[in-house]
């Protein structure tokens, strides 16, 4: 089954908005890694990743976010995930990553 991932990066001063759409798995992870990691290597930068249109993510996807988180600790930047779909959010919750990565609890489809 072919999986696709779209990555859109918009710079807004000290905040970088990353919009993701599609699926994050072993096939699309390299694309995500390539786009996301360099963004975290700037001090005091806030990288806000919007996952509203990500309807599937597996554990390899988590690996990228873990790398990104470690990178923000190293470069003193900040990572924030927003608008996660339920199944994706659950993955962060079960793995305990929701306690160390900032996840905006605004539910998808809430106040726009």
């Amino acid at each position, binding site marked *: 089954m072919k999986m696709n991932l779209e990555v859109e990066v918009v710079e807004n001063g000290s905040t970088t908005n990353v919009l993701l759409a599609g699926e994050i798995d072993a096939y699309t992870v390299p694309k995500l890694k390539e786009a996301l990691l360099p963004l975290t290597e700037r001090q005091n930068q806030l990288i806000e990743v919007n996952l509203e249109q990500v309807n599937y993510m*597996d554990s390899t996807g*988590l690996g990228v976010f873990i790398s990104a988180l470690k990178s923000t600790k190293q470069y003193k930047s900040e990572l924030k995930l927003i608008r996660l779909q339920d199944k994706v959010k659950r993955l962060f919750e079960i793995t305990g990553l929701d*306690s160390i990565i900032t996840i905006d609890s605004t539910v998808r489809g809430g106040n726009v």
Partner: protein
Amino acid sequence: MNKVNLDLENYRKLLKQYMITQDEKALYQAEQFTKLSMQHNISPEEIVNVHIQALKEIYPDLPKEIDDSMSFLLEAMISYGLAYQEFQSLREKQLELKSEISVAANMQQTLLSTVKPSIRGLDIGATSIPANQMSGDYYHFVKDNEDTLGIAIADVIGKGVPAALSMSMIKYSMDSFPLSQRNPSAILENLNRVVERNVDPSMFITMFYGLYDPKTSVFQYSSAGHEPGFYYNAKMDKFDEIKAKGLVLGVSNDTVYQQYELEINKGDMIILLTDGVTECRLADRFIERDEVLDVIKKFTHLPAQEAVEQVYKYFERLQDFQLRDDFTLIIIKKDV
């Protein structure tokens, strides 16, 4: 039926037979002819050429237009022929790779194998089927003289040697200390430090570790971000999620793990699994966790080993025989 001969003469005979009788037998023999041709590396454009020659022999007055159209078709088929040759070459390469990986997979199996222990009063079933040749899932049983049972189930995210090494660490730390000193939270805390020191920052492990003491009927456990299992309470005839919170191994080197306890009584069951079970895809959506439980419930009346195998077969079929992730399922029933 006659054996199929691979030559122009034979093709012409078959073609002529079909043109006169239009019978299915000729078509079937044509199918056998092309299979044989492929085994002899005859390409599609050569078949078209044989066809043209045969036509000309059968119909010496063949209109020029038909001949031209066949030449046109021959050109079109050349690309297909090239693609076929590329496929052949890729297939050979794939076979080579597969056999290399087989060696690695065999090594993995040998070094990391676990024996299902036999413990009085417990019926244990376990199965782990990799999606590819090397498995990212790992489970391990340990038993000591007092019949205490240690059980680990883990899912390693990350590939290759570091991942396989992590599995060795899990096995080593379980095997090397007496079970009475191996409480689940300490095991996870130790393992976490080891994994975190590993080179690849995106590698992590989800793991569930449990310790069952038959003298007290208590099951102690901790979880490092692992997919929650299920617990069946026979008295209340109810299935519950085995709730345990904990951060996956390998992210932060000072993670502390909470330890939980369950009392296991006669007829109770513990069901442990990896996300290869819960991430089953159904047609256009993913399976829900309660649907997974419904499937498992279908088979829990069977002996534990048979039950896990039947559950696997069920999911295998549900996913069109192409599992996307390693599938690991353990069922422990308390009989007495």
